[in-house]
């Protein structure tokens, strides 16, 4: 595989992103002076950066001990289930998450009730910065923990043997073995989490308590909807892109190349697992993380099961919506996977800093609303029809999925390249054979995880489909909104449960089919 197909994909991606935003600017030149003088925008940029920075910092800091505890306890009952559970929050639709957070931490939530019964008055704390952080940590900590866990599990057995021989204690192991292993994916994961929190919309508005903490996406919403100021929307989207992009570039310098390790590739016992204190601490960390991630999911299940589940499950509309969602999700997934893998392969051969990886991450920072509107303008200009709407939704979801694949797969690919490049060169193994014999088996697991993520994210997507809504193309998230709009809160709760179950099912299935059964 040479860099050429990768470069073609990168160019296509830049063309689509740039074309969409350029189409908006061409349709309505923005008033730059007005944007520069807008004091609310200054406020948004400051507060959103603060919010996203804090969300990112807390998510990553909390994920490290969780990943470490999970790495140390490689086999306990329910570990596999817990790791699967960790894949769920990031793909839960925003509205489902909002209601789950409210059921737990809201004014009439479980925690409030528990504290009141224990004679403790908590007062409201959900709406404001705290609510945003609670939800963003719920979204991102499990994802970061899984990424870090993968990095820790990739530590070669020789390191542990050496640690045993030298009699390292926990702190020395962290400093000399675990930290260097984590560092490789730290910048990459942190950048991803920051971008997601920076563009977060429904969470920052509803749980933030109002426009004080609302993100730039809310301003883009206003520009596109009421003001119909396409140029302004495009400039705001570019601003969002520039800030996230700058951060990405900045963090890229910290994505240090992992030390070349010629490991045997089989697990060897760690020396720091025997102590009673360590065991108790790990148990507490794992239990707290499981509760933090599990309880909101449980609240979704309870609300759905006590809602009108039978009515929802027997309605043909439900299954039609589910079918459309799955078809779009699979298309988006394949699109994202092929595009991202070509780019990763290209970047691995051309240079180590990986400009392709940077480009592949950009869609995440692009406002889906602005991107959708821009593509829509392009589509209508080139004589597209309504019937192409679903294809476009798949395309947007595919673009939005590429960053995940790149972030998850690129470190493993780089690692594989470092380990095997010289060997392959000397044996003359290249192209398809190299993929089949060397890279494929090693990259299956991260690729499976990434593909499952993209499919699940697409299943829960609302942004793209709401704009392109065509005849008979209701997806499950849209159905939830329709039910809510018709006061059918119980039906919406049941549909939300179905959506979460379907997402989880797809996630597990794809991860198993692609990544192989040895998970865990």
């Amino acid at each position: 595989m040479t860099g050429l197909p990768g470069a073609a994909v990168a160019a296509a991606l830049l063309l689509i992103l740039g074309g969409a935003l350029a189409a908006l600017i061409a349709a309505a030149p923005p008033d730059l002076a007005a944007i520069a003088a807008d004091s609310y925008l200054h406020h948004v940029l400051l507060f959103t950066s603060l919010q996203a920075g804090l969300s990112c910092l807390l998510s990553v800091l909390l994920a490290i001990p969780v990943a470490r505890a999970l790495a140390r306890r490689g086999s306990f009952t329910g570990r596999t289930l817990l790791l699967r559970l960790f894949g769920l929050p990031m793909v839960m639709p925003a509205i489902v998450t909002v209601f789950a957070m409210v059921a737990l931490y809201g004014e009439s939530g479980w925690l409030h009730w528990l504290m009141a019964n224990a004679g403790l008055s908590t007062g409201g704390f959900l709406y404001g910065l705290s609510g945003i952080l609670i939800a963003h940590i719920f979204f991102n900590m499990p994802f970061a923990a899984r990424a870090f866990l993968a990095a820790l599990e990739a530590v070669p057995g020789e390191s542990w043997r050496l640690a045993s021989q030298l009699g390292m204690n926990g702190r020395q192991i962290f400093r000399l073995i675990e930290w260097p292993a984590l560092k490789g994916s730290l910048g990459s994961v942190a950048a991803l989490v920051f971008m997601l929190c920076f563009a977060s919309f429904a969470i920052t508005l509803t749980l933030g308590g109002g426009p004080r903490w609302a993100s730039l996406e809310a301003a883009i919403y206003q520009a596109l909807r009421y003001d119909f100021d396409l140029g302004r929307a495009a400039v705001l989207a570019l601003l969002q892109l520039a800030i996230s992009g700058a951060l990405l570039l900045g963090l890229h310098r910290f994505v240090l190349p992992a030390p070349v390790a010629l490991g045997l590739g089989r697990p060897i016992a760690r020396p720091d697992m025997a102590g009673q204190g360590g065991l108790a601490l790990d148990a507490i960390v794992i239990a707290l993380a499981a509760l933090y991630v599990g309880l909101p999911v449980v609240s979704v299940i309870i609300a759905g099961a006590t809602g009108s589940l039978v009515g929802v499950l027997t309605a043909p509309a439900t299954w039609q919506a589910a079918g459309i969602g799955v078809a779009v999700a699979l298309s988006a997934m394949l699109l994202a996977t092929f595009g991202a893998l070509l780019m990763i392969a290209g970047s691995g051969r051309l240079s180590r800093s990986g400009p392709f990886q940077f480009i592949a991450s950009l869609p995440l920072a692009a406002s889906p609303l602005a991107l959708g509107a821009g593509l829509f303008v392009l589509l209508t200009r080139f004589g597209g029809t309504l019937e192409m709407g679903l294809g476009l939704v798949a395309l947007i979801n595919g673009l939005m999925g590429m960053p995940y694949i790149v972030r998850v797969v690129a470190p493993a690919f780089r690692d594989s390249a470092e380990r095997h490049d010289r060997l392959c060169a000397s044996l003359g193994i290249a192209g398809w054979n190299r993929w089949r014999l060397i890279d494929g088996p090693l990259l299956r697991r991260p690729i499976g995880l990434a593909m499952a993520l993209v499919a699940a994210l697409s299943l829960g997507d609302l942004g793209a489909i709401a704009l392109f809504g065509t005849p008979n193309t209701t997806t499950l998230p849209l159905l939830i909104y329709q039910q809510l709009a018709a006061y059918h809160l119980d039906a919406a709760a049941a549909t939300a449960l179905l959506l979460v179950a379907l997402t989880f099912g797809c996630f597990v299935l794809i991860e198993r089919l692609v990544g192989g059964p040895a998970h865990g």
Partner: protein
Amino acid sequence: MKRILALILISIIGSTAASRADDLPVLTVYTYSSFVSDWGPGPAVKKAFEAECACKLNFVAVEDGVVLLSRLRLEGASSPADVVLGLDTNLTAEAAATGLFTPHKMDLSALQLPIAWHDADFVPYDFGYFAFVYDTTKLKNPPHSLADLVGGASSDKILIEDPRSSTPGLGLLLWIKQVYGDQAAAVWQKLKPRILTVSKSWDEAYGLFLKGEAPLVLSYTTSPAYHIIEEKKTQYAAAEFPEGQYMQVEVAGITAHARQPELARKFLTFMVSKKFQDAIPETNWMFPVTAVTGGLPSAFPPLPKKTLMIAPEDIAAHRKAWIDEWLAAMSQ
């Protein structure tokens, strides 16, 4: 695997395109998502109209009324829409200014609207009033006026919607603007501590209200009727304010480039007939613009004593400044 990708994409595009093979003329109506949902008026309207028009009625649904106008403007003259149904009086001036609509030329004098209707382009099909809805079992001392709400105890929280993304949210902004004028920013600052949160959409705000997050929510005067009729629950009530309730009229219009102008006109005539209007009260939970068979459901509230409404032209001219004022007051 590339072949699989291509196959899936082709099958998606193919399956949506296959629905066009029909000889009957097709009337394309753009509307919002909740209108065509299983619980909205859409299914009944489609059935009744197709029974008499010798045509196929094709609904294309987007998120809400505001996106409806954005979508039409994005498509411009090449839009396949014949009729756009679901704009409201906060948008009609801007919609007319786009030049994408054509006068309806209908005689609307028989409509039972509480206000005079002179709009040349748009025909109303239902209307409602924004109101603060509360749970009588939880709120013993509901606000008796807008002033009461603004100055009331900040322990009784309220849930509202963002005017940038929600129609009721914009409605409250205009409501307070009409009642308080230049004092609006000060009123918002006073109201701010009472606001639990500002939601993206009505659905979210009302969902939070039903889950018991706050005792008051910005909704419609007709919301309690839903709970009485569908759930036999009588605990919800809408607070009536002597300053008046802000009114919203939902309208439809024919596009200037409609491919089926005759069918479109037929549809608008059908829209203000009993067959369409009968479906409105108990599916869209709004007031119909004509008398309906059997009269309004008894659970429906009487019309408010005082109606508030800012002229569409004034809204179009000032909305951005008013929203900026709201943002400044609310984000401090």
